[in-house]
């Protein structure tokens, strides 16, 4: 056992920090700090900048365009990116469909899609959930019926994040109505969002933002070569992704950055906004968050470096991380007092007469706190994760 960061790791951190200096355009950094949903333009530009350095998919194996870094180096890299106020790169290509493609995709599919994922020229979205299939993903009803060398897709998806940014969707469909999903009823299809018969409608969330969508498929014709792997493997693909997601969703680097900002914010609020803020109480809450985040970070490191692969551990990380993100933004909103009541309009942020005459850290906080209520719901709700732990770990 060696529980320390090696000098080489520290040197790596230093090197990355230097290389990142000045790389995040200042207005992008400001938007990231403000905490609204990242714009498509920012995601694209940042993806391209990363790719220019060979870092777009730092976490992938080298043979597929990754960095070949150790998991610890990847962690350090992501931490430094977050510290530089870079947006978290678009999730669906780099985190989800990319690994799916290099693990299950055909040679031709890999050649067709992976390069554009790395450059950020193609954005993807994840079409899993439906109105009546959320936690119970196996029950998806969207059908794909084989007709010669195409599939004809009909049905509806819901909550599709960034579908309005996306060029392509990877979509969980029912290819055999008679087989249960675990026995080969589901398949994964990939297709352009411009395919005739697809309608995308925005779903506005309680923060007033637009990040999720409702998608309708009406006789959407998809070439059979767009099937991932073989027909009937969709459930295995979905399980592979959901397991990946639980760990990436821990978002430790971003959480560390948020906590650092929280500390700065508390000090500034106390200094500039008068003595009413109980800094001792805020400090106690920050200390608790710091301790909980340290625990989460070490659990993530244990998992990505040690690799138990135990689904119960991954589910536990998802629970802790989601609750921590919620508590951090709750504290942030509490710190800013009555201004936490104001609904700042993202479109107005450049004005110099913002409501409540706020310090620059205020806009975005309240909306982000509201949106983060979703972290305990998406990527497998926390109730579902607890069920997985009880079952996988103890057979309950």
């Amino acid at each position, binding site marked *: 056992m060696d529980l320390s960061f090696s000098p080489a790791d520290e040197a790596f951190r230093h090197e990355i920090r230097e290389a990142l200096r000045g790389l995040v355009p200042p207005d992008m950094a400001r938007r990231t700090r403000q905490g609204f949903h990242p714009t498509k333009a920012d995601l694209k530009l940042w993806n391209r900048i990363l790719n220019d350095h060979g870092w777009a998919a730092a976490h992938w194996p080298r043979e597929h365009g990754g960095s070949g870094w150790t998991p610890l180096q990847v962690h350090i890299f992501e931490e430094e990116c977050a510290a530089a106020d870079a947006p978290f790169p678009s999730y669906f290509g780099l985190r989800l469909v990319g690994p799916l493609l290099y693990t299950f995709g055909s040679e031709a599919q890999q050649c067709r899609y992976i390069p554009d994922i790395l450059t950020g020229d193609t954005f993807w979205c994840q079409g899993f*959930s439906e109105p*009546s*299939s*959320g*936690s*119970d993903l196996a*029950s998806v009803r969207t059908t794909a019926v084989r007709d010669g060398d195409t599939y004809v897709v009909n049905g509806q998806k*819901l*909550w599709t994040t960034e579908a309005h940014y996306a060029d392509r969707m990877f979509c969980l469909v029912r290819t055999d109505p008679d087989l249960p999903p675990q026995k080969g009823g589901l398949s994964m299809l990939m297709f352009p969002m411009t395919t005739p018969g697809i309608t995308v409608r925005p*779903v*506005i*969330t*309680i923060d*007033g933002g637009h990040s*999720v969508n409702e998608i309708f498929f009406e006789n959407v014709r998809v070439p059979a070569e767009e099937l991932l792997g073989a027909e009937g493997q969709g459930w295995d693909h979905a399980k592979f992704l959901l397991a990946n997601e639980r760990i990436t969703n821990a978002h430790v680097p971003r959480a560390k950055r948020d906590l650092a900002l929280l500390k700065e914010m508390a000090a500034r609020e106390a200094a500039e*906004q*008068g003595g*009413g*803020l*109980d800094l001792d*109480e805020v400090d106690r809450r920050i200390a608790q968050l710091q301790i909980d985040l340290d625990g989460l970070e070490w659990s993530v490191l244990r998992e990505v470096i040690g690799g138990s692969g135990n689904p119960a551990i991954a589910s536990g990380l998802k629970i802790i991380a989601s609750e921590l993100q919620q508590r951090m933004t709750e504290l942030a*909103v*509490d710190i800013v*007092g*009555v*201004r*936490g*009541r*104001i*609904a700042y*309009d993202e479109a107005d942020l450049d004005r110099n*007469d913002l*409501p*409540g*005459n706020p310090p620059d850290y205020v806009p975005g906080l*309240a*909306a982000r706190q*509201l*949106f983060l*209520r*979703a972290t*305990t*719901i*998406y990527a497998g*709700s*926390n*109730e579902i994760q*607890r069920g997985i732990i009880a079952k996988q770990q103890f057979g309950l």
Partner: protein
Amino acid sequence: MDFSLSDEQAMLKDSVMRFVGDRHGFDKARAHATAADGFSRDDWARFAELGWLMLMIPEAQGGIGGRLEDAAILMEGFGRGLVAAPYASTAVVAAGLLARAGGADDLLADIAGGEALVALATEEARSRYDLLHVETEARVADGGFVLRGAKIVVPDGASADRFIVSARLSKTIALFLLAADAPGLEIRRYRTIDGRRACDLAFADAPARLLMHDAAETLSRAVDEASLLLAAEAVGGMQAAIELTADYLKTRQQFGRTLSKFQVLTHRVADMFVKLENARSMLLRGLAAAGGGSAEARAAAVSATMVTIIQAGEFVCGQAIQLHGGIGMADENAVGHYYKRLRAIARTYGDLDFHRQRHLRLTVGDRSAA
């Protein structure tokens, strides 16, 4: 002690429940939230017809002379229906202050008739809910007074046509009245997270009428009463959120059965109910303390009520979203709106930390001074 409603109160409750049930569903609330004022002027006119706007005006000044408990009954109904009308601010707080100040019978009559909306502006950029932290200043000019300074996030401020403003007058805190179109007054109107409208006020020697000098205790009482009304609204909102959630669990199916078959979810609803009922008790306790006793006892009790309400609201409405799953996050679903209203209430006249500190100060005192 008697916890039952009087005949008049039962009628009041019945009529507000009927109003909310028949005329004010969630669709209406959403539509009002997108309208310019953030609430319905038609509803306001109806409130006048029903006599609700004169409920809290003393009989001597042409009103009904109701008690805070009566207004709380209405507020609970408004909370249930997500009614955004400025009832607490105009018909209770402003009407109460104007009645106490005297000499404003015409304005009180306008309030009763639904023709005047009056908002109380106390919060400042650096005051953090402390009513005694007032940087806005009043001084004598041309035989009257002018104000200089600024107020922020005035509850229901965007639609108000008059403001009651706290300002420093020599060494004391005084209350002033001025119209929204007063010279030297600049108003910045905007939305709050609960879809309502607030505003910032900037005074550059704006002429204002002195309502009351040495008003610190009167103001403190008025704001405590306002807090209790928001607490009543919160109770109504929590109750509605719990009912919606229980209904949803009975109908939503996953894994081939209704969600109500998952005990972790039904127990959560049970916990929500337990917190709500505790909050309701604390609302009544607060109302009792507002009815008599010392100013300190009242303030401590109101803070205890608000601590309980704020904690219950976060849990009850947060879990209402959680148990709805994704649909709870959608703007088109009601539960998120209850959550946002509860969070807005939790930072209007004081937040959790403010009320805990105030309670501590009033009940334990300052140990370092002993």
